[in-house]
């Protein structure tokens, strides 16, 4: 195969990856999203040392309850999905259905279907408003 053909194939693969990431969607509100929102609220409001530790670990700030909400905008979830995928190993990057919780100017993102290769934990990430991964928790 000639070099320019290889380049074309690589670009196609990258576009496919982006396309798949962009196709990530928001999960609807349910018991699981309620749990994630509750956890986020405790992190940013609780005075318990353990929750304060969690707030610091996830790089969240103290914000009022009202600044915490489940995101339902698929364009936001698509960008969150792309960022979430970037935290994962190559073979695990694909389109997702995500819980994205806005916490002030940050997002807490979790995909409860994450296949972590048999590991114990699920990945929860904190994203900046620019969808940069700030913290990764294994919960």
């Amino acid at each position, binding site marked *: 195969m000639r070099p320019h053909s290889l380049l074309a194939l690589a670009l196609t693969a990258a576009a496919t990856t982006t396309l798949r990431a962009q196709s990530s969607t928001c999960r609807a509100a349910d*018991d699981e999203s309620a*749990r994630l929102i509750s956890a986020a609220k405790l992190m940013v409001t609780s005075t318990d040392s*353990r929750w304060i*530790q969690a707030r610091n670990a996830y790089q969240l700030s103290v914000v009022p309850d009202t600044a915490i909400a489940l995101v339902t905008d698929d364009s936001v979830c698509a960008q969150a999905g792309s960022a979430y995928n970037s935290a994962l*190993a190559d073979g695990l990057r694909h389109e997702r259905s995500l819980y994205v919780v806005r916490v002030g100017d940050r997002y807490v993102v979790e995909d409860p279907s994450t296949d972590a290769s048999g*590991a*114990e934990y*699920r990945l*929860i990430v904190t994203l900046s408003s620019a969808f940069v991964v700030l913290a990764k928790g*294994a919960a």
Partner: protein
Amino acid sequence: MPCSISGVNVVRRANRYARLVRLTGLLTLPLIAASCSGDRPVAPTTPVPTPAGRPERSVVTPLGNFQLTIPATNTDGGSLPWTSTGITIPAGSYYRIRINGSVTVSPNPAHQEAYPGGTYPDVGTYGPGGTGKGAWELRVGVRLHNTTGGGITDVPFTMQSGTSAPDSARSDIRYAGTEAVVEAGRAGISGSTNDNCCNGNIGFYTLASTQVVSVELVTDAVHVTADPSAVKAGQRVTFTARDDNGALVGVNSWSYEQDPGVTAREPAGCWWNNPCVATLYGSLTWTAHTNIGTGSAHVTVYSDFRLDADKAEAYAGDTVTFTPKLDDKPAVALRWKWVPSDTSAHDGTICAADSTCKKVMVGSGTMWAYLSSAGGQGDSAAVTVTVIRVCITNDSILDTQAVQRVLRSLWVHSNADDPTTENRREQVAFVYRNPATGEYSAVEWPNPSFNSPCKSLPGSPAASAPPMSWLVAEVHTHPFHAFDGLPIGCTGWLAVGSWAFYDPVSYGGPSGRDWDQVNSMRAVDEQGNEHKIPEYVIDQDYVYKAVPDTPRSQWLLNTPTFPRHDSSVPCTFP
């Protein structure tokens, strides 16, 4: 009168046996006479090293038995002449001879018929001491007949006589300097009538015997103690030689042999005194030479004495092993004392003189080890052990001691304190409940080929496990503190070079997958009914209990959570 053999002072002590005894009929059994120049058996004088752990009881090896026969009547006196038992005692042996059984004397029917109206005063049953009448009637004698030279040595016994006397007798432990065959005999019993005409001579009695002579070799019959068993140079030690019964043994001489390489000042001798007190300057073995053998004790001369414990902290029920050490080498403490920190506690321990003392811990305290058996003498050393109080959880499974022990082991096997986090391991155990007794137990199920710092599955039981139908809970570990970074090796699902922290709060303690598992896992009871079981998760800070079918909304704030450490008590779990 003392005399010297091979540079060792020896005193003969057996003159008390110097007399002769004449028996009825054919026998004369001379007993031993002794002097310095005589042929009385003499104990060896070469120091005999005593192996460590010398038994405190004699070692007895049976050499043989011999049935003593008896004539049917005493018409011809009824004696048993000296007869070889066929039992040979090897040269240089210590031996003991026992005589067991009795002779039964009954009226002779032939005499009764021939001489009606006769009386038979000696009817009865007699032990080896005989009747006590006449010339040692029915008394058993034993002697040694040297196989070379033909010398004969009588074996003395202390015997009682008469019908109420014991039916057994034994000799002291004695030394056979040369090989000898054991011979035995028995005196007869008087009483016969002879009309010199029609009936002739007829004995009064019929005789029957169950008597057996038994010969045994005896070793380690002398037990020497050294008190203290360890001293500093220039201190005094008391050596005492005793027999199996704890009685002082007559010592012919003492000798010593310094340990290899020891070139300390020689101690003064002790003649034949027992106990013997000596001032020591170097480690040595001190030996008593007696008529029943030799016995030795070792004394260590040291400069440093300390007591080690294999655990500085322990849980109630744990066994702690204490080891006294002299100059870093394990030693024997002659006395131990446990002093509980809580002086009102009834917490004592009795340990014999030994190189270790094992104590099942009840409460904190201090163990003392002493080098002397007498209070106020000898050196001592102490070590304190703190008993860790286990936190009460009010969870029936977690508050079971048998379960706690396994959980402690599970945690130890998790290597949770290893600073190299890659070396930590999740570990799994199952908890069982005996349906008959209601008792809980737990067994680890290690799975070294699968488990990692971040994942685990049950492998094979580490110990005999109860039936799976008794299963009531699963336990596994998360060997991290909250928000510790997980090792990259077990987060291979993250982008290369990326890492995540351990988050035990977002799902209420157990991980998301733990909740998946607790809601999907099924146990099957003895009736074949499926049921869900709770899952305990132990991390560095807490124990969490994932209860099946807990509503998701309850996970965060209502998962039962038990602190691993409570400084207000203080206590720790498990």
